[in-house]
């Protein structure tokens, strides 16, 4: 039993899990308010990371400025995407909505490959020292920053939905669209806003991940790996997404640990979450915190 490796992996799992939680939150936000399952979530990360990279490398902006530019771009991108592509899809059957986001995902993934190439690129140095030592564990600076950013985003979500007028409008729309509309809430704006927020926050996660591992099209895998997390937590629960994300993050690292120490099957890190996903769907399809779908005849 290699305890040092185990703790290191669990810490890694917590950090990555928090990022899964952030991406899962965006996913749940879009699902809750617009009833669209966003298979293009991973491409938001990818586009955000590439745009920020281009701003830093080609335009040679300082990091903070480039980052803010990226956020503005992604907000506009998300809103436009909803207006142009997703709005005609309101009221269509679920397969059409799923397929249109899959179509978007294919399109943007290929577009990014076409523009930026397939080889991974690394970000310019942002921090002076690469890793810090906390309680005897080596934690990369970018990871530490990602944890802080993830926690800040979660807090911001909480405050936004609890206290702001727009957050209240979004909660009302998620609760009952027709009632919200009759009370004077512009459901159209709420839809566009939720896509904008999802794109912006995903892009943040994309930039953070890009700083750790370099930017390449493998970032879009995150959009698929977030499914086990949100299903575990319940598709329409924001807290569920965070809890599910952390659990899946730790779990895949534990699977990796067990595999590398005892089983030697290989590739468990990538595939274990999907086994978990099938098991959850089999025994508790609505997850830990999701609302059960009750149908009346």
């Amino acid at each position, binding site marked *: 039993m290699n305890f040092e490796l185990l703790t290191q992996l669990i810490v890694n799992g917590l950090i990555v899990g928090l990022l899964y939680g952030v991406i899962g939150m965006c996913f749940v936000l879009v699902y809750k308010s617009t009833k669209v*399952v966003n298979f293009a979530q991973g491409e938001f990360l990818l586009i955000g990371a590439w745009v920020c990279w281009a701003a830093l490398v080609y335009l040679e902006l300082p990091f903070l400025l480039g980052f803010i530019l990226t956020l503005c771009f992604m907000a506009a991108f998300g809103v436009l995407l909803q207006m142009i*592509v997703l709005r*005609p*899809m309101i009221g*269509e059957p*679920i*397969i*059409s909505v*799923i*397929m*249109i986001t*899959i*179509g*978007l*995902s*294919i*399109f*943007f*993934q*290929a*577009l990014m*490959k*076409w523009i930026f190439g397939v080889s991974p690129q690394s970000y310019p140095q942002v921090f002076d020292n690469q890793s810090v030592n906390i309680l005897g564990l080596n934690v990369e600076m970018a990871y530490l920053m990602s944890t802080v950013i993830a926690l800040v985003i979660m807090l911001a979500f909480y405050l936004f939905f609890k206290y702001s007028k727009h957050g209240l409008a979004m909660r009302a729309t998620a609760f009952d669209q027709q009632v919200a509309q009759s009370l004077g809430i512009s459901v159209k704006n709420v839809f566009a806003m939720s896509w904008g927020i999802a794109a912006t926050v995903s892009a943040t996660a994309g930039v953070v991940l890009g700083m750790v591992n370099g930017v390449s099209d493998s970032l879009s895998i995150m959009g*698929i790996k977030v*499914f*086990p997390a949100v*299903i575990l937590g319940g*598709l329409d629960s924001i807290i569920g997404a965070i809890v599910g994300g952390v659990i899946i993050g730790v779990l895949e690292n534990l699977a990796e640990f067990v595999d590398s120490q005892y089983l030697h*099957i*290989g*590739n468990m890190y*990538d*595939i274990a979450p*999907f*086994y978990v*996903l*099938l098991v959850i*769907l*089999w025994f508790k*399809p609505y997850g830990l915190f999701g609302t059960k779908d009750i*149908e009346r*005849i």
Partner: protein
Amino acid sequence: MSSLSMRPCGDFRTSYQQDNTIFETSQIRLMAIAAVLVLCAAPLFLDGYFLTLCIQVSYLGIAALGLNILVGYTGQISLGHGAFFGFGAFASAWLNSSFQIPVFLSIPLAGFMTMGVGMMFGLPAARIKGLYLAIATLASQFIIEDFFARADWFSGGPSGAAAEPITLLGYVFDTDQSFYYVALFALVTMLVWACNLMRSRDGRAFVAIRDHYLSAEIMGIKLNKYRLLSFGISSFYAGIGGALYAHYLGYVSAEGFTIFMSIQFLAMIIIGGLGSIKGTLMGVVFMVLLPEVLETGVGVLKMTDWGNIPLVVDGLAYIKEMAIGLVIIGFLIFEPQGLAHRWGQIKNYWKFYPFSY
């Protein structure tokens, strides 16, 4: 999604049997038979390139037909069809090389094996539906893909598996011309079977589940049984298609059967028209021709002076992928009922010419 009836005047149906024929009128039946005959004669006047495309259409068409039975007729969603297609390919090669089962037997056996795997992964469908099912099948896609990469005894691991050509009574079907007939035979058989399935009790149960599953259940249709059956039939089709693919290429490797392939199958049936057998074929032809047309287009562009842009010429692979994404989005927004619906409208236009709308 029933199209406008095109029956001539005075053609009244007086029994259920008459109302349930495969072909609506005798003229359509004659035209279908003529089409099959023309296709039989096709190798005489088509060159190798077009024959390859035809063979591609037939094995992809068989698999897409299975997906349309599942998605278009039963209303379930599957994102794992590409993996089942691959499973059929590996299963047939494995049965043939490990147990010396002749290929013409191993292809249907591979179909049944794939059917078993498909029903196993379709088990969650008994409890969940809609997007939960989509995500469950997405998980099965990754699990099966992982299985291909890991099970060396089954798939030959990273080096892939060799598949022998089909032999029947000493004759080897290893040229494009001879394999074309095998593919055509398989496609027509599977098409007729799908048409007949939809006229049967089971087929009507599928449609009832798609249209309103609660009402269907109240009417006495066993939801679990038929959902599982639909998964089984669809994987059987995928397995047959995959097995034909394996024995046509003579070689199977695990890289091809990714989520992208599953998406392409879904794209085929959406472009063609959900719940339409004719539409499935149209969609497959469309998706097979799309990359070829793009390639020709770029080739023509390359010859002109102003068209030799390195970005376009080098990025052809990405342009093809982007075109697939765009086509999916475009069809869903502008033509959600697919090519089959458009075809019906065109027919309608000519039929009722001055009074069409």
